[in-house]
């Protein structure tokens, strides 16, 4: 007798747990030939709010980890992805991706995670400065995480765009609320499972599946989200994010990128999601008797 396969329930990822959407709603995900793949959570604005709460709670712990430790954890994500790469590829194919593109998408995504793993303990050094002020003060500027960031990758690149936006965000010590691709949601959920088993503390990454038309507004208007980063959004959604962000002066970065090239990665994606903090302290008595070195 043929063995009955165990079908997977794809759930959302909030605060290190995999709940169903609090709304209890779902949408059907079908393959190209019309056969059912999964019932996917149709996330709600309450899920967005719960995610922001979880993300906020995680900011202190995540940004407080040593940069070296964050680096290792990101590298661990890449290791886990590599081990699951066949699953990522199969899911993409099941959702209608051509085989070769699915392979590319997964390979590039894993490499991108490794790329950002390496930045965690370097960007502060490269971006920071000691400022030679014209008074007797020691003055330095360091980059600090912005806090909670909303991540809105484009529909048609469900893994690479997501990773290309998410990794610079968390490499820089931020926590994230991600809106997964509506059309190809499986990669995001599998990534959540990877992240969950990579020593990333709960709440650092939260991933919600559902409709952009329902989720984008509550995310962009949320008063406890510090920034929004996105790519490949149409004018209408871009406008929506920018308008809704005004309430608490969110920093908004929307890139025109398909992420499949060298320009799709870099230091400045980390820098965009950082705040610059400058500290002053007096220096005792320059030019005293002991200063003749």
């Amino acid at each position: 007798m043929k063995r009955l396969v165990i079908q997977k329930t794809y759930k959302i990822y909030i605060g290190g747990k995999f709940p169903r959407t609090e709304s209890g709603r779902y949408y059907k995900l079908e393959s190209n030939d019309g056969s059912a793949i999964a019932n996917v959570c149709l996330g709600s604005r309450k899920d967005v709010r719960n995610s922001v709460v979880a993300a906020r709670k995680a900011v202190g712990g995540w940004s407080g980890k040593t940069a070296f430790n964050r680096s290792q954890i990101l590298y661990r994500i890449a290791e886990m992805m590599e081990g699951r790469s066949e699953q990522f590829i199969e899911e993409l194919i099941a959702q209608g991706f051509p085989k070769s593109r699915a392979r590319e998408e997964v390979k590039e995504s894993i490499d991108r995670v490794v790329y950002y793993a390496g930045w965690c303990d370097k960007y502060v050094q490269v971006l920071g400065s000691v400022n030679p002020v014209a008074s007797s003060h020691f003055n330095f500027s360091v980059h600090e995480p912005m806090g909670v960031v909303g991540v809105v990758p484009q529909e048609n690149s469900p893994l690479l765009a997501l990773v290309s936006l998410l990794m610079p965000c968390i490499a820089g010590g931020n926590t994230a609320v991600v809106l997964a691709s509506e059309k190809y949601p499986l990669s995001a959920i599998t990534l959540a499972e990877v992240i969950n088993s990579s020593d990333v503390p709960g709440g650092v990454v939260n991933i919600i599946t559902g409709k952009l038309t329902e989720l984008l507004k509550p995310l962009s208007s949320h008063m406890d989200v510090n920034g929004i980063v996105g790519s490949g959004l149409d004018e209408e959604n871009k406008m929506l994010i920018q308008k809704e962000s005004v309430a608490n002066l969110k920093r908004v970065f929307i890139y025109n990128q398909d992420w499949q090239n060298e320009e799709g990665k870099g230091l400045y994606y980390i820098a965009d999601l950082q705040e610059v903090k400058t500290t002053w302290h007096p220096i005792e008595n320059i030019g005293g008797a002991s200063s003749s070195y």
Partner: protein
Amino acid sequence: MYTNRLITLQLIKMAKKTNKNTWELAPAPESSGHIDLKKQYELFIDGRWVAPKKKKYFATTNPANEKKIANIAYADESDVDLAVAAARKAFDGVWSKIAPSERAKYIYRIARIMQERSRELAVIETMDGGKPIRESRDVDVPLAANHFFYNAGWADKLEYAFPTKRAEPLGVAGQIIPWNFPLLMAAWKIAPALAAGNTVVLKPAETTSLTALKLAEIIEEAGLPPGVVNIVTGHGDTGAAIVNHPDVNKVAFTGSTGVGKIIQNAIAGTNKKATLELGGKSANIIFADAPIDQAVEGIVNGIFFNQGHVCCAGSRLFVQESVAELVIKKLKDRIGTLIVGDPMDKNTDIGAINSKEQLGIINKYIKIGNEEGAEMYQPSCNVPSKGYFCPPTLFTNVAQSSRIVQEEIFGPVLAIQTFRTIDEVIQKANNTPYGLAAGVWTDKGSRIFNLTTKLRAGVIWANTYNKFDPTSPFGGYKESGFGREGGLHGLSAYVKLV
């Protein structure tokens, strides 16, 4: 700012106590005889002085005596249109084309002429805006010139500022500045914009247009190509015309959070880049082990510098409980020696409130503070009968939820709270939608680093306050705005990286 005179003033105070014949500092007014001001100022567009199309003007007055100084052109949309067109032409035709090293030389020239004309600039700044001449002379004007001097050198070194990328100018920058540091803010805005190769349309605040117009004269004198810098004077609608102009590529604004939000909303859906330098309610934190006398000076400098018209003013004071009584007593003593009065007098510590309107706002908050049950302290001082003045004001017994603790007052009003533990004060200090600056006073180095890491603000002053420098990035977290001004990081607001 006040340190040098502290001892003298305390001696005076002692003398006052012991001697019935009180003696005070003789008036030491700066003269304005050498100042050359016109009766009427036009708009500076495309290198020429042009009358506004609608021929409308408004008066600028001296807030210390309510006397009119000059008429200022009121630019409307059509004037802004001309200015943006001139800036575009100058950008395409000259400024983005000439060698960066030549750009640098023009900017150096501006810095030098500002230094040469510094006394004139300081006097006009004080006449038009009400700030003490000592501050215009020692802070505003030299720093403004230094910003040009510092940024000039970046023009031909941008490739070192942004590794692996080419920094290209954005185009026409529309810049709107406030009335608290009129010339200095113009310098903060114009200098990096020009260094990076942008051209500029700048609007000064309506109560303080004069030094920006003097800067236009200097720019003329420096021989900058016409249209590289355009100064359009006017009110809020003039600023709105700049923000909404389709041919403006970059908006830089310093002012209130309310207007900042209007601007962010107005440019949504456009490709305009923005830098917003907005309000604050910065915490100044005094630990028990702090050098108390220095800390008291820092508190005074934090909130009473420039009449408290400072976005990063240390307007919320947190004193550790064990020294609260002592600090507050010393603070009361100290503000009793502050001289409130004629801004042109070199002895004046607190000058005139910038406008009648602003005085109204400050008085409204003082009333709110009293109504909320806070305890007010103002030293007795002879405030001039003409002009807009406000004595230094302390509020104790305030709650975290008090409006005078939560809202920006932009005047010489300090809300004082106490705390016991570090965690408590971090939480209280961060409990605000703003995040511009903070001060920490303690003798313990590890505590300073702990606090500077945990305070959510763009500038942290440790054992000092209200220090500024062209090399030092300035700007806020959260609703204090985004982007930085000053230093290497300030340049990035005026370039696109390709």
